[in-house]
C-alpha cells in the first residue's frame, strides 16, 4: 500500500514537471495555433545556460539567466521564423518548428557532448519523509511552481486583453491587426513566455532524482506531448491534468512492472501514449480542450 502511495506521489510530482512542459505547448498553441516541436530545444537551452553559469554566479542568478536565455531564444524563433513563415496551415508551421528543433538540438547536444551537467540547485538530494513515503524536495518545488504558474496563466488568458489579443491573432492575424493588435508583439511575447516556462521545466527535469542535464532531456520532453494533448491543446487546466495523468500512469506502470510483466516489460514508455489514444477516442479534443465546431 505504502508503495502505491509512494508511486502515486512520485507520479504526481513527475506529472508537475510534465505539466510545466505541456503548458509551454499550450501557450504557443493558444497564441499561434502551432504545435511547437522546438520546445525541446528551448528546454535544452534553458538548462544549458543554468548549468554553465551557476558555478560563476550562483544558482538563483543562473536560473534567471537561463529563463532569460530561453525566453530570448523563443522570441528569436518567433521573430526569425514563425513571423515570416507565410503559410496558411498551422500544421506546416508545426513541421517548421521540427526543423528549428533539429538545428538547435544538434548544436546543443554537440556542445553538451556526453557530459552530464549539474544545475547546482539548492535542494540537492533532500527528501521529505511523510510516514513511509519519501518525496524529493525538488519535486515539491516543481509541484508548487507548476501550480502557481498555471493558475497565473489561467487568469491571464481569461481576463487580460493579452490573452484575447493572443487568441485573436492566432485565429486571424489580419483581422486582429484591424483591431490594433501588434501581431509581432503578441506572438513574440507568447514565444518568449514559452521559452521562460521551458527553462523552469528544464530545471526541474534535470535536478535530483535525475542526475543532471544531458542530451536525453529532449527525449524525456516527448512525454509532455501526450500530456498536452489528452489535457486539450488549448487548455491550461488541461496541461496540468494531462501532466498528472501521464506522470501517474508512468510511475504506476513502472512500479508495478513485476505484476504487469505478462504484458511484456518496458510498458512504462508506451502507457502514456496508450492512455492518450484511449482518451482521444472518447474525447477527440482532449479532456478540457474546446472541440472544433464548424458551421456553414
Amino acid at each position, binding site marked *: 500500500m505504502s508503495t502505491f502511495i509512494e508511486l502515486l506521489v512520485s507520479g504526481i510530482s513527475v506529472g508537475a514537471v510534465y505539466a510545466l512542459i505541456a503548458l509551454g505547448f499550450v501557450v504557443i498553441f493558444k497564441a499561434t495555433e502551432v504545435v511547437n516541436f522546438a520546445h525541446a530545444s528551448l528546454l535544452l537551452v534553458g538548462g544549458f545556460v543554468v548549468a554553465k553559469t551557476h558555478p560563476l554566479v550562483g544558482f538563483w542568478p543562473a536560473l534567471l539567466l537561463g529563463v532569460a536565455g530561453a525566453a530570448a531564444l523563443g522570441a528569436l524563433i518567433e521573430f526569425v521564423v514563425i513571423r515570416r513563415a507565410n503559410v496558411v496551415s498551422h500544421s506546416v508551421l508545426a513541421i517548421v518548428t521540427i526543423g528549428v528543433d533539429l538545428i538547435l538540438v544538434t548544436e546543443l547536444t554537440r556542445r553538451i557532448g556526453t557530459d552530464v551537467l549539474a544545475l547546482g540547485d539548492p535542494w540537492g538530494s533532500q527528501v521529505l519523509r511523510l510516514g513511509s513515503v519519501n518525496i524529493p524536495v525538488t519535486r515539491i518545488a516543481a509541484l508548487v511552481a507548476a501550480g502557481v504558474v498555471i493558475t497565473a496563466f489561467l487568469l491571464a488568458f481569461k481576463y487580460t486583453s493579452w490573452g484575447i489579443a493572443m487568441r485573436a491573432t492566432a485565429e486571424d492575424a489580419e483581422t486582429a491587426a484591424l483591431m490594433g493588435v501588434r501581431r509581432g508583439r503578441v506572438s513574440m511575447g507568447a514565444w518568449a513566455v514559452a521559452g521562460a516556462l521551458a527553462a523552469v521545466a528544464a530545471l526541474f527535469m534535470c535536478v*535530483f532524482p535525475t542526475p543532471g542535464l544531458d542530451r536525453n532531456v529532449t527525449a*524525456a520532453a516527448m512525454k509532455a506531448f501526450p500530456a498536452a494533448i489528452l489535457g486539450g491543446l488549448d487548455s491550461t487546466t488541461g496541461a496540468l491534468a494531462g501532466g498528472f495523468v501521464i506522470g501517474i500512469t508512468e510511475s504506476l506502470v*513502472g512500479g508495478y512492472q513485476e505484476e504487469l510483466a505478462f504484458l511484456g516489460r518496458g510498458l*512504462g514508455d508506451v502507457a502514456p501514449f496508450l492512455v492518450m489514444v484511449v482518451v482521444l477516442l472518447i474525447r477527440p479534443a482532449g479532456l478540457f480542450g474546446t472541440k472544433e465546431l464548424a458551421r456553414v
Partner: protein
Amino acid sequence: SDKATGGGSGAAASGDGVKTGPGVTAETITIGMMTDLTGPYASFGKSLTNAQQLYFEQVNKAGGICGRQLESIVRDHGYDVQKAVAAYTEIGPKSVALAHVVGSPMVNAVKQRIEADQMLTIPQAWATHLLGSKPIQVTGTTYDIDMINGVDYLVKEKGIKSGDSIGHLYFEGDYGETALNGSKFAAGKHGLKLVEQKIKATDQDMTAQVAAFKKAGVKAVLVSVGPRQTASLVGVALAGGMKVPFLGSNSAYAPQLLATPAGEALLAAFEYVTAGAPMSSDLPAIKKLGEDYKAKYPNEAVDSGVASGYIAAGIVVDALKKACESKDLTRAGVVSAHRTQSSWGDQYGGAMDFTAFDKPASLRSYIVKPDKEALGGSVVVKEPFTADIAGEYQVPAGG
C-alpha cells in the same frame, strides 16, 4: 568505368608471396573503425578511436606488419543504424578488419556481411548475441558472466544469502538482457529471488523503480543500464534511506557522473564488474598506455574506452602478425590466424582464449569502484576472479 576494374575482390598473391585481399596492398594494410563521435557514446567512441590510432602509430614506428604500414579509416555512425550500414558498405571493401564497432544494434545490422566477408571485427559491446560468429571477436567477458561473478561477489563478501531477494535494473535490448541471463542463472544457483526492472535509455528518473525494489525488500541491486540511470537509481535509493550495495555492469558507469550531485551517492554505495583492468590499475602495460595516451592526447578525458580500444587494436594487430607468418593476409586468413590464439593479452590483466568463438574469451572479472582522484575515475576493489558456478553456465550464443 573505374567500377568495372575495381570489381575484383578475389585474393591475389603480391610480390613477397603473401596472399592478400581487400584492404591490403604491397605497402599498406587498411583497418576500419565504425565508431560513434556524435551520438550518445561520443566520448567513448573518441577514446576508442584515439587509443587505436595511437596503437597503430606505435606499430608503424616499429616497422609495421609484413613490411606494410597500417592505415585506418574511421567512420562516424552517430549511433544510427542506417549510417552504420552505409559506412560498412563504404569502408568494408577497403578494410582487412574492423578494429572496433560501437553499438550492438550497428553490429547486428552488418553481421551478415561481416560473416560473408570474413572480416575480423571487434565489437565494443559485450552481449552474448554477438558470440557464435567466427570473424566477430568479443573481448573479455560478456555481461552475463560479469553478473554471475558479481552475484558471487555479493554472496561471498556482501552478506547476501540464500532466500534473500536482489534487484536487477536493466535496459531493454542486448546489453540488459544478456546481463539478466547471468543474474537469473546466478540467482538460481544461490537460491536468491530476482526482482526485475526493465527500462529504456530515455528514462531519466528511477523513483518508481526504487519504490518497486523497496517494496520487494531487495538486499542488493544489480545495475545494467546507462550511467545516467545508475546515478538516478543510487541517488534516489540512498536519499530514500535504502542502504544496499549496488553492483553495475561495466557500461553502467562513467567518470563524468562524479561531477554531478549523484557523485556522492555513487562513491558511497556503487561498484561495478568489468573484465578490463581500469586505467588506474598498476599493471605495467596499462600504466604505459596511460602515459602514452596522455602524451599524445594531453587534453582528452581518459575513460574505459582508452583501454578497450587499445586492447582491441592489439588483438587485430597480433592477428595480422600471425596471418603474416602464415603468408596469408586475406581476411579469411586473418580470421583463422586470430582463432589459433588460445591465451592472449595476459599483460592486460587476464588472458583471453580466441579458439572457440561461441564462448566468451574470458570468464574473469574485476570488481571496481568509482574514485574521484584515480585516472579513469575508478580503482580496483577485487582482483580478477571467476565464480566457480561460472563454469556450469551455458552461454546462449547468438546465431
